[in-house]
């Protein structure tokens, strides 16, 4: 589907002039900035006027300058497939993605509820397993999940927090309703781009930004550092917290160093740490120094070769013993993967009801669990209309986009689902909402699909939602895939303040 097919010549009128003239989203899709009648949505009228006043040439120049600045600053991610380990900038579109104050209030409430419930669920999974007793099919899925680690049972994390940092992927359906697409409760990434993108917006659109009354996002690192200190096994002022990275060749290395730098913490690699007498130390030029909190950005499978992967040379031997002894806090807690598992996702509304006795605030995408006979039958009958996801894959891999798939691929997935139903879930394709996005090749604004990843920090005092988030955008015309590994880019997310 090409966006240009849906271009309709609209009469330039009122606010929709200049850059936004003749802009329209594909039919059957919610465009977040411009309503179906071609007028800007009321909350965003002023921003559309101000940005629209720029000429295409001016805008293209600003876009090119922004990209050069990102490259020079090394705001890049590494591309695994590239043999030279080349770094690319995460493509960035200068047109901001706006979220009204009322919409974000709703999202905020929903995210707080959801992370609270998922935290309680994890406590239960690695504790008494009350919920699993109530929901037999969930029990089966959880105990069989790849990221369920029985050996973590009975360990209470320091400070009682497991999901210190959550990144929850949201989409908006054709009615504009926010729906949760996926929870990321292990090592969600992307927040550094939220902050870097904001710096660029402010530099390039100072007047627009000032008039739009947008919540700040640059206090995130401070809040994160406080969250980490709050779960320390010793007093916050005596705490040494570090950021643990796999190293400069990791695709998210920029973010690891960014967070360490902006929190004023040291960035360490596994080999810098060692465990003695169930305590963690970092090797320094002045001898060993005790470490109390580790914000780990490495997969838990590589945390401790004694426990997870005996064949691994990576990791810190004895780290899990130190953790179990309560001498070091790990953020996020190991074992969280069981709660953001795609197989568990369909049950999150039940989990919220079970633990909080509340109705879920946020909708999610109706999902068929192939392990259930009825669901599986439906999925197989409607395979060419479904999006099928393997529960143990991430980053847009291992997915079937039914409506676009070849007959060959469809039958391949059919066989896989029949063979291993538990590995798959399926959803109808949601028409992701669009945002006007700069198309460099055509030098104009075009409708591109977006999602939103807000970040939730949880300390012993409770959850806090950053008023902003990573807006990922599918830069390819008609594409639904926003992952940076598959040609996605990002936008600055402008969350409006309440009117005073």
């Amino acid at each position, binding site marked *: 589907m090409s966006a240009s097919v849906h271009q309709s010549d609209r009469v330039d009128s009122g606010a929709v002039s200049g850059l936004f003239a003749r802009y329209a989203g594909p039919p059957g899709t919610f465009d977040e900035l411009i309503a179906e009648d071609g007028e800007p949505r009321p909350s965003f009228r002023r921003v559309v006027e101000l940005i629209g006043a720029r000429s295409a040439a001016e805008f293209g120049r600003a876009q090119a300058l922004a990209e050069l600045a990102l490259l*020079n600053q090394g705001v890049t991610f590494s591309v695994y497939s590239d043999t030279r380990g080349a770094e690319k900038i995460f493509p960035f579109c200068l047109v901001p993605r706006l979220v009204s104050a009322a919409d974000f209030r709703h999202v905020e409430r929903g995210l707080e509820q959801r992370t609270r419930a998922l935290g309680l669920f994890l406590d239960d999974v690695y504790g008494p397993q009350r919920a699993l007793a109530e929901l037999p099919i969930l029990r089966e899925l959880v105990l069989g999940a790849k990221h369920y680690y029985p050996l973590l049972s009975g360990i209470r994390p320091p400070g009682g927090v497991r999901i210190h940092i959550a990144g929850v992927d949201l989409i908006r359906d054709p009615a504009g309703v926010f729906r949760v697409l996926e929870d990321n409760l292990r090592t969600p990434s992307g927040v550094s781009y939220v902050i870097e993108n904001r710096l660029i917006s402010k530099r390039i659109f100072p007047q627009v930004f000032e008039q739009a009354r947008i919540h700040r996002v640059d206090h995130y690192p401070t809040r994160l550092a406080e969250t980490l200190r709050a779960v320390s096994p010793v007093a916050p002022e005596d705490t040494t917290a570090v*950021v643990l990275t796999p190293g*400069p060749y990791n695709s998210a290395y920029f973010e690891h160093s960014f967070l360490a730098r902006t929190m004023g913490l040291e*960035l360490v690699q596994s080999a810098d740490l060692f465990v003695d007498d169930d305590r963690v130390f970092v090797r320094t*030029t*002045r001898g060993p120094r005790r470490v109390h909190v580790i914000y780990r950005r490495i997969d838990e499978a590589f945390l401790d070769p004694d426990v997870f992967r005996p064949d691994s040379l990576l990791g810190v031997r004895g780290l899990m013993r130190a953790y179990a002894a309560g001498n070091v806090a790990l953020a996020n807690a190991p074992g969280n993967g069981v709660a953001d598992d795609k197989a568990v996702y369909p049950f999150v509304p039940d989990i919220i009801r079970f633990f909080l006795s509340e109705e879920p605030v946020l909708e999610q995408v109706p999902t068929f669990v192939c392990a259930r006979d009825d669901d599986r039958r439906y999925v197989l009958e409607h395979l060419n209309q479904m999006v099928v996801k393997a529960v143990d894959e991430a980053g847009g891999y291992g997915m079937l986009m039914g409506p676009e798939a070849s007959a060959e691929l469809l039958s391949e997935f059919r066989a896989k689902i029949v063979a291993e139903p538990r590995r798959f879930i399926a959803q109808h394709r949601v028409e992701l909402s669009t945002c006007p996005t700069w198309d460099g090749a055509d030098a104009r604004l075009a409708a591109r699909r977006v999602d939103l990843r807000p970040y939730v920090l949880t300390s012993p005092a409770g959850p806090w939602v950053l008023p902003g988030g990573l807006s990922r955008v599918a830069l390819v015309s008609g594409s639904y895939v926003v992952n940076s590994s598959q040609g996605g880019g990002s936008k600055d997310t402008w969350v409006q303040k309440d009117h005073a």
Partner: protein
Amino acid sequence: MISRVADHGFWFGRYLERAESTARVLHVTLTMALDAELTKAQCWLPVIIVSGEKAHFASTHEPGAEADGDLVQRYMSWSEDNMTSIRRSVSAARENARSIREVVSLEAWETVNRLYLWIESPEAREEYEVHRYGFYRRVREEVQLCLGLLRSTMLHDTPLDFIWLGVLLERVGQTARVLDVHHHAVAQYHREQAPNGEPFGAKEVETAIWLSLLRACSGFEPFMKQSPGRVSGSAVAAFLILEPKFPRSIRYCIDSSYDRFCAIRPIDQHALPGAETLRRFGALHDWIRGRTAESLAAGSIHELLTHVVDETARICDGIARELFGYGAEAVSTQEQQQS
């Protein structure tokens, strides 16, 4: 400070300094080769020797290749398998900085990253082909900008101490090797061109070599201020070895690198790692302070420079072993106290 981070900082400094120094030596040699009455090989071979890559160059090139100034410049600027080429040095400096992005200030990082991106771009190749001096100048200026930004935008604390320690120890070695090679070249010139007394113009050739040496160390103007008009081998050598106020002299670099080391590893904190290196460093420091212009009698300069280069290498090994934790896993503090 985390040992690995200190290690990267130290090498960040060393590679930065190396890139700048190589660009300067190439630039100066290019100028000198135009009118120095020396053979091409006499001009260009020293460049390779100073970089420490004589054996590698010989093994990868035809005999006599050192007479091809263009080839030597390409080797010293671009070669991927020459560890000391400008390209490799810039890339290594940038890789070390990238590994400790949280430590290097944003402005300094941007400078070295921009230099790296430029070196890897077609524009740099073009600049090299059509405007050679401009290419060398840009490398030097960007590195100098980065060194300046490090000092003006970072806390003057342990991380900067390690970076600066790397810069200064690299500089000690560079100055010592450049001086040694030129000293050797002059002696050789005397043997080959003037075995039976001085031919007409020999004095000018020798002076040209000494002036080019001063320029290769950015020392021409400072030297002229200290000893106006008296360009002799012994005066230049004394200046580059002993002048305490010249920031590239061996004495200055050892003085200040020793200061950096004492800031990192204070003399009175006996429980800290680094006792052995401190002792050796202190000895070198005392020794260079004990040298006088008179003690630099003809013939002893080569021995003096060799001592400096060897001791500097041992100090670098000691830093790697005691502070960065290389080799024998974590020598315990008790053992160090006994030594």
